[in-house]
């Protein structure tokens, strides 16, 4: 038991050291800092989805909608309300989370494939709103004309716009905050209840757990995290576009979560890393990069049903 605990701590330390030093070890390996930033943001999004998929056991296929709403929330705040990066992040998170909370009330009544279908439907509603409401969202051309702002600490200013490294560490800080809260929730009695629902919904119901309400809370929390990730994504690109809300984007997130390992906390981050790095690298080599990403996905699903991380853990044990 103790040995396992130490091993977990070592793995955790290794992950954080790797993340902290990413700008330094990525460049010699042919990467670049902006790629690491993108991995973090999409990794956070995949982990948010996995909060629902892996730990509550319900599959949402429309989570990109809340990701995109977060992006638009942050972009619109920077463009029309105030030139403040923290405010934009909060606004994006609130927009994604609150929409998720309201729609969640309707969605949680369904299970299985119907749950997935309803989430796609609501996701596409937001996609078409962003696509058609040109005067506010810029329509198909996307929302532009805003950029992330330096963060004022009073004593000094952190320039996250022109310095790629500062921005990476800012995103890493936000990522750590979100992941910390996520881990804390999963360790709480509420998190245990979520896992109980995943393992056996009927039994949880018999134990007197209000299953619908718990799934709703999990859905809402996951949407808040998703909105936060989306807001960060808007800052990464200084741009928000309707494709970020499209169901194909939701599919990418599910793919990252499943590929990395949806039963483990860090799996989706690994999945997102593999997905983003592979896309970045392969698409420079061949235009048929999608076939390779798809092939990898098929291989993972066929041979490592617990995801890449699950495979590594099993082979170590």
């Amino acid at each position, binding site marked *: 038991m103790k040995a396992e605990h130490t091993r977990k701590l070592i793995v955790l330390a290794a992950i954080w050291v790797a993340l902290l030093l990413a700008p330094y070890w990525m*460049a010699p390996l*042919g*990467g*670049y*800092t*902006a*790629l690491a930033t*993108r991995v973090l943001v999409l990794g956070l999004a995949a982990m948010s989805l996995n909060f629902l998929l892996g730990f509550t056991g319900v599959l949402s296929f429309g989570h990109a909608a809340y990701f995109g709403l977060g992006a638009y929330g942050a972009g619109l705040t920077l463009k029309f309300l105030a030139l403040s990066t923290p405010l934009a992040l909060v606004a994006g998170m609130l927009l994604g989370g609150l929409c998720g909370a309201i729609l969640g009330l309707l969605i949680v009544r369904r299970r299985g494939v119907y749950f997935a279908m309803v989430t796609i439907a609501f996701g596409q509603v937001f996609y078409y709103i962003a*696509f*058609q409401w*040109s005067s506010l969202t*810029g*329509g*198909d*051309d*996307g929302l*532009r*004309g805003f*950029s992330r702002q330096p963060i004022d600490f009073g004593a000094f200013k952190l320039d996250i*716009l*022109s310095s*790629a490294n500062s921005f990476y560490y800012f995103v890493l800080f936000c990522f750590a905050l979100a992941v910390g809260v996520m881990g804390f929730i999963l360790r709480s009695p509420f998190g245990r209840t979520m896992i109980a629902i995943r393992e056996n919904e009927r039994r949880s119901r018999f134990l007197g757990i209000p299953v619908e309400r718990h799934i709703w809370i999990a859905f809402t929390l996951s949407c808040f995290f998703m909105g936060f990730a989306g807001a960060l*994504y808007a800052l*990464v*690109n*200084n*741009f928000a*576009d309707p*494709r*970020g809300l499209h169901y194909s984007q939701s599919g990418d997130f599910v793919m990252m979560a499943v590929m990395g390992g949806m039963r483990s906390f860090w799996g989706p981050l690994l999945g997102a890393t593999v997905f983003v790095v592979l*896309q*970045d*690298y*392969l*698409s*420079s*080599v061949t*235009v048929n*990069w*999608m076939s390779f990403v798809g092939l990898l996905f098929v*291989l993972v699903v066929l*041979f490592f049903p617990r995801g890449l991380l699950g495979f590594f853990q099993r082979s170590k044990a």
Partner: protein
Amino acid sequence: MGILQRSWPVDRRTLLKSSAAIAAVQFSSPFIIKARGETPVRIGLVDPLTGVYAAIAQNEVVGAKYALEEINKKGGILGRPVELLVEDSANDVGTGVQKTRKLIERDQVSFIIGDVNSGIAIAMAQVTSEKKVLHVVSGGHTDAVTGSGCSWNVFRVCNSTTMDANAIAATLIEKFGKKWYFLTPDYAYGHSVQAGFEKVLKAAGGTSAGSLVPLGTPDYSSYLIQAKAYGPQVLINVMGGGDQVSSLKQFVQFGLDKQMAVGGALFELESIRAVPDAARVGWWTMEWWWDQPGVPHVAEFNAAIKKITGNAATARNWFGYASVQTLALIANQEKSLDAIKLAHALSGFKLPPEIALQPGAPEYRAGDHELMSTVFVGEAHPPQGDPDNMFTIKNPVPGEKAAGPVEATGCKMQWPA
């Protein structure tokens, strides 16, 4: 039969691991640093090589690569060889921005070209102006690129939507009349094109009505019946891609081609090739055309592209070609790679005939950095003789005339200190 015998001692896992390793090796070659004499000048090209614009994006790459070959034959840029790094934006803004950063930060490119998708082009322009890198937008048409969103470091080769609309609108009014009906896709691009047409029509004292059509509509009968009832002289078709094809086909099936003219802004050669003869009708604009008798160098360029692709050169081939050639010309003229210096020199720069490949000498207008390229207004038809002879130029409109004054574009050029 009952005994399972393993003829060779390799289990599934080893097989998987080794095949994965072999697959991985296939991609390792770019990491090996090749021996180089002189450090090359690098040009980064970001285009949607996958997705709905794949065909036209690939044609821009063909043109760009051909230009590269020519430049390297003539001694490169500043005596250094030129390298073209092509990246796929996958028709996604996030990916396009990411690839632009990759090219600038990691690969240290001196110039950026791209993208076919205007939204991505604008997002890329934010990165390039932040990083102070000279950027040529080869094929994204939205007005904003050289209009409200213009930037000191961004120059555009292809026409703006307004230029195309102005050029064809004048011709249609003159030839057919002032009563028009619009078939417009219901999203930002469609609305802005229709608004452009309506402005010209109103100025000429014409009247119009129109239908907004959802993207991906398979059946146009209700819209065509409305159009017939309105009885216009011209049906303006703003639909794009597959929607353009099905709407044109149904237009002919309904027999409307006998009652009114049909036309619109763009019907690229790539699109005309992709449709059946029945849909090869109407009045359109081409931004470049391979058959310009009497204009020097055009035939040579067409022959060279035909050698590569097997088809006549398209406007997209020329966009890629002109983009790369522009960068090489200006860098060699100024003997510098400094973005600000080159951008100043490019403002008002006239393309020489061997690159312009059209009548006159189009210039990058100083006020908005738009290339004042001729807009070829003409009529589409089924192939006559040459399989790519599916369009006849009737009225080439000079770029300056089509573009209108700089003030109307909404561009306020701001230069870095």
